[in-house]
């Protein structure tokens, strides 16, 4: 039952993606939306294949479940996100300085603003987690 619901939601993604892609192809919508449609089609099809394979192949289902629940994988995912955020902040800070040096004040401000938002989000997440644990 749970698998059926997941298949249905992914079919909805594919239908929605096809509609967006079609509208973009017909020139009704711009390339952004047709690109979004393409991404939805790809994600939906991959997920449907994965769900069907999981329901037919027990060893594959076991492998996927272990991969998802494995504590080292979870640790790696969290660590990768932490590194990504750290590298993003560093790169954005460098970009803000470079934009400022080249007189692109608006871009520099946007980069600086992005860093500020990230720090505020970090602080909020920290506060929530601090209350939770």
């Amino acid at each position, binding site marked *: 039952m749970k698998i059926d619901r997941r298949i249905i939601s992914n079919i909805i993604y594919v239908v929605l993606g096809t509609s967006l892609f079609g509208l973009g192809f017909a020139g009704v919508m711009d390339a952004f939306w047709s690109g979004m449609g393409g991404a939805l089609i790809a994600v939906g099809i991959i997920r449907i294949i994965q769900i069907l394979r999981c329901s037919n192949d027990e060893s594959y289902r076991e492998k996927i479940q*272990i991969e998802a629940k*494995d*504590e*080292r994988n979870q640790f790696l995912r969290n660590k990768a996100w932490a590194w990504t955020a750290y590298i993003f902040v560093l790169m954005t800070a460098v970009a803000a300085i470079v934009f400022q040096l080249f007189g692109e004040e608006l871009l520099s401000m946007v980069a600086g603003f992005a860093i500020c938002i990230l720090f505020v989000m970090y602080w909020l997440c920290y506060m929530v987690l601090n209350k939770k644990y």
Partner: protein
Amino acid sequence: MKNKIEQIRKERGILQDEFAKALGVSRQTISSLENGRYNPSILLAYKIAKYFGMTIEDVFIFEEEEQL
């Protein structure tokens, strides 16, 4: 943290795949644990010790200087 997982596992003739399956983790996790690249959670450490029929202290070697 050092551990005796590989030694105990080999003494008992248990394969990494078999061990991983029993603990519900991937084979890479077992490999990383044995090489000391990854320290397990207290829950996994407990599961490992229980699987071997030993205590956590028998399997894992805590060294004070690691905390300095």
